[in-house]
C-alpha cells in the first residue's frame, strides 16, 4: 500500500485487516518483509512550508531527505542533527525519507553538541491504529501546549502511528569547519581527550575516535564549526588545551573535513564487511571499558565515547558479554535468525516495558503497526 494523501493513509489503516509493515525508504531495513502488508509512506511527499527566517520546515513524512537537504541548502540552512545515511552500512538501496529518519530518531556526530533528531522535531501529524488523523506540537520553536507526543512519536519506529507530516527546526550551515586530529591514542586516552575538549568553551561539534586497525594508526577527531576567524581561534586553543595528549594537527580544508565527518556519520569504517553491527549508547567515560568487553572485530567511537558502533562475528550475544551497564545496545544489522534470537532492541526493565506496551495498545489497539518490533506485542 502506498497512500498519496493523508486521507488515503487514514482510510487504508482504518480498513486494514491484518498487520502492517510501515516503511519510509526502507534504507534502515528495520522491518522484515514478512512482518505484514507493506505500507509505504513515500507517496506522502513534498515540502508544504519553509520559512528560512523562522528556521522552520514542514514536509510530508515520505519526502526524500535529499529533497529537504537541497531545499535547505539553497538558503544556507541544514538539519543540524546530521542523520546517518544507512545505505552503505546496511547494504540497502532506495531513498532515505524524513519520516524514516524521525521514526528512528537518527542522529549523527553533532548529537552531542546540538541535539538529536527528536530535539529538532516541532510537530507531527500521524494516523493512529484506529485510522484517526491526529496532530501534536506545531511549527513553532517553543510549545508546551499539552503532552509532548512529538518526542514520543520520534524514535517510536512506526509502532504508535504512521506519520504523515513532520515540522522541524533547522539551523544555518556554519560558514566553515576544521578538525583537530590526534593520532595514536588508545581508547581510554582518546575518551579522556574528547572529554577535555567537550568540557571546554570551544564549542566542539563532533568528537570521534577510530582505534588502530589493519596498519592504520588510531585517530581521534574533534570538529569545530562556525565563522572562519572563530574556527581558527578555537582550533588553536584546543590544540593548546590537548597538549598533554601528544602532537595534534588541524585539517582546515572544509571539504576534507566534511568528508571525514560524513564517514563518521555513516560509519564507513564498518561498512561493506561481514558480521553483525551493534549501536551502543553509554556514558562516554564507560566507553573504553564497554569497548573492551565487546570483543568486537571493529569499533568506532562517536559522541565523545558515548556512542559505540561495533562489528561482531555473526550471532554474538554482546548483551551477555556486556552484563549490566548504563545505556542500551541495539542490534542494527544481522541476519533474520540473529534478530529472532537476540532481539533488535535492548530489553527494558519490566515497569518501563509495561508502560511502553500499554501506550502502544492505546495508540494501536488492534496491534496493526510493526508487530514484534520494539518488544513483543500479541
Amino acid at each position, binding site marked *: 500500500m502506498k497512500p498519496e494523501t493523508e486521507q488515503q493513509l487514514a482510510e487504508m489503516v482504518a480498513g486494514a485487516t491484518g498487520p502492517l509493515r510501515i516503511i519510509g525508504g526502507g534504507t534502515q531495513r528495520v522491518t522484515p518483509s514478512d512482518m505484514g502488508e507493506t505500507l509505504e509512506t513515500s507517496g506522502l511527499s513534498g515540502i508544504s512550508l519553509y520559512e528560512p*527566517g523562522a528556521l522552520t520546515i514542514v514536509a510530508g513524512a515520505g519526502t526524500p531527505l535529499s529533497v529537504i537537504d537541497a531545499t535547505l541548502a539553497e538558503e544556507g540552512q541544514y538539519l543540524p542533527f546530521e542523520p546517518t545515511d544507512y545505505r552503505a552500512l546496511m547494504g540497502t538501496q532506495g531513498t532515505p525519507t524524513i519520516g524514516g529518519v524521525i521514526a528512528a530518531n537518527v542522529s549523527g556526530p553533532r548529537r552531542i553538541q546540538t541535539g538529536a533528531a527528536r530535539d529538532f522535531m516541532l510537530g507531527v501529524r500521524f494516523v493512529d491504529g484506529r485510522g484517526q488523523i491526529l496532530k501534536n506540537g506545531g511549527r513553532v*520553536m517553543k*510549545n508546551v*501546549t499539552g503532552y509532548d507526543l512529538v518526542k514520543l512519536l520520534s524514535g517510536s519506529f512506526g509502532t504508535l502511528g504512521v506519520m504523515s507530516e513532520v515540522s522541524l527546526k533547522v539551523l*544555518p550551515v556554519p560558514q566553515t569547519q576544521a578538525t583537530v586530529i590526534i593520532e595514536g591514542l588508545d581508547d581510554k586516552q582518546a575518551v579522556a581527550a574528547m572529554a577535555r575538549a567537550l568540557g571546554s568553551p570551544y564549542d566542539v561539534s563532533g568528537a570521534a575516535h577510530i582505534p588502530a586497525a589493519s596498519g592504520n594508526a588510531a585517530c581521534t577527531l574533534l570538529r569545530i564549526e562556525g565563522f572562519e576567524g572563530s574556527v581558527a581561534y578555537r582550533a588553536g586553543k584546543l590544540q593548546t588545551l590537548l597538549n598533554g595528549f601528544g602532537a595534534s594537527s588541524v585539517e582546515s580544508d572544509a571539504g576534507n573535513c566534511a568528508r571525514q565527518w560524513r564517514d563518521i556519520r555513516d560509519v564507513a569504517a564498518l561498512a561493506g564487511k561481514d558480521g553483525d553491527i551493534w549501536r551502543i549508547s553509554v556514558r562516554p567515560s564507560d566507553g573504553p571499558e564497554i569497548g573492551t568487553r565487546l570483543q568486537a572485530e571493529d569499533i568506532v567511537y562517536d559522541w565523545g565515547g558515548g556512542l559505540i558502533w561495533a562489528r561482531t562475528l555473526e550471532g554474538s550475544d554482546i548483551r551477555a558479554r556486556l552484563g549490566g551497564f548504563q545505556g542500551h545496545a541495539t542490534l542494527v544489522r544481522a541476519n533474520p535468525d540473529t534478530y529472532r534470537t537476540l532481539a533488535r532492541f535492548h530489553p527494558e526493565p519490566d515497569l518501563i516495558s509495561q*508502560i511502553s506496551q500499554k501506550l502502544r495498545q492505546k495508540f494501536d489497539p488492534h496491534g496493526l503497526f510493526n508487530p514484534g518490533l520494539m518488544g513483543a506485542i500479541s
Partner: protein
Amino acid sequence: MLDEQEAKHALRFLVIGYIFLPKATELREFIMKMPVPNPSILASKAQLVARFLEVLPEESVIYDEVETRAYECDGLAAYRCPPMVAVLPTSTQQVSDVLRICHEMGVPVVPRGAGTSLSGGALPTADCVILGVARLNDVLETDYDNRYIRVQSGRTNLSVTGAVEENGFFYAPDPSSQLACAIAGNIAMNSGGAHCLKYGVTTNNLMGVRMVMMDGEIVDIGGGHLDAGGLDLLGLICGSEGQLGVVTEATLRILPKPEGARPVLLGFDSNEVAGACVSDIIKAGVLPVAIEFMDRPVIRASEAHANAGYPDCEALLIIEVEGSDGEIDEQLAMILEIARRHNPVEIRESRSAEESARIWLGRKSAFGAMGRINDYMCLDGTIPVSQLPYVLKQIGVLSTQYGLDVGNVFHAGDGNMHPLILYDANKPGDLEACEKLGADILRLCVDVGGCLTGEHGVGIEKRDLMGAQFTNADLECQMAVKDVFDPAWLLNPAKVFPLDASAERRSG
C-alpha cells in the same frame, strides 16, 4: 538570566492577591471553574493524616487549616484554594509511601515544586493533597567527564548552575523565576528562558529522571547516556505538568560556560522593521543566544521605572552573542551590518560589563515596571517569527477594543510572545475583561500557526482554550496517555484538559 526585579514583583503580586482575597475567590468561581470537592474525600481527612503520620515525621505533614493556606496558590495568584493536606517528604521512598496511601484511598494529589507556576499548575483543590518536593534539594552526583549533574528535583534552577559554576559549567535553561523555581516544576512545564534560542528548553537538557508513579512504584528513565533505547518516555514526561508521575531526581546536561557574552541594543521606529531585522539576522547564519524584543508601552514603563537610558522608540531589540572577545566582535559586526540596513534609530554597543548590565537593566525590569502601572496578566503564546508584525498590530486592535493596555516584551528569536495585559484588580469586571482579551490574543496566536503556551504550561489558565488548538481526538489521544500512567486520574487531575473533556475520567 537571573531577574530579581521579576522575582520581587512576583512577591508583590502574591501580596496584592492576598489582600484582595475575598474578591479573588468570588472571581475564581465565576471565571475558571474547578471541580466540586468530593465530600467523601473531605470526610476522610483524619484517617489520611493518620496514615501519613505512619510514614512521615510530624513536621512533614501539614493539615492545620491556617497552615495549609501557605499552599493555596502558585504564581497565578488570582486563583487560590487551600488543600486538604500538604506533605513535604524528604526522600523518594517517602514520596512513594505518600502516593501509595493516596492511591489506596482515592485522594487526588497535586505535585508542587516551588509554586512559581504562572498557569496554576500547582493550584490545589479543597479535596487534594499537595505533595511538595521542596525538601528534596540535594546534589547527588556531578560528573564533568560525562557533562551531567544528578540532583533531587526540589533543587532550584539557579542553584544547579551554582553547584557547577566553579568548575566552569552551567545548566542552560533559565526561566526568569530561576532564583526560586524548582527543577521538578521545570520538568513538569518543560520550562524555557531567554537563552533557549541556542541551548534549547528543559526537554533538550534533561537526560534522565527517577519518578514515582501514582501507585507508588518507582521508575528510572534515562541516565548518563544519550537517547532512549525504546520509546522516548523521558520526552513524554517532560512537560506533562505533573500528571504522569512525581519526579524526585533528575539527571541534567551541563555545559561548559562560554568565554564571554555581550549584548547590543537596537532601536527601531516600527515593529515591522524590528521583526524583519530579527528574521534577517537569523537568515544570515548568526545564531545569537538571545534576541529580546520590547515594544513602546514596555520601553516607556521600564524607562520610567529603571531609567536604563533606552531610546523612546516603537521597538527595541537586545541581542546577545557569546564567545571570545574576537568571536563576539565578529558576530556583532555582522549583526550591526544587517541592522544598519533597517535604519535603526539607535545602536548601542557595550564596551564594558557595566554597559552590558545597563543594556539588560530595562529588559529585566520590564515586568516589575509594568506591575508598577497596574496589575497585569502575562500571556505566553508562541507564533511563527514571520507573523510578528501582524500579531503585534492585531494585539493593538484588540487592546483598543477591550480598553485595556497591552505591553509586549518577549523572546523574538523563537516567537515566544509575552503580552502583558494591564488591569485593575480592584475594578469590578476588569479581571474578567482581561481574561477574555487574553483568550482572544491566544486564539490569534493559534490562528497564525502558533500555540497557546510556549513555556508556562497549560495548567488551569489555558485549559479551557485547548479546543482552539486541538480536536477532540487530539485531546483524547493525550488523555489516553494519562490513562496508562494514572488510570484513576488522581495526579493533578483538573489541569491541562478542558474540564468537560476529562469529566468522565476524573469521576472514575
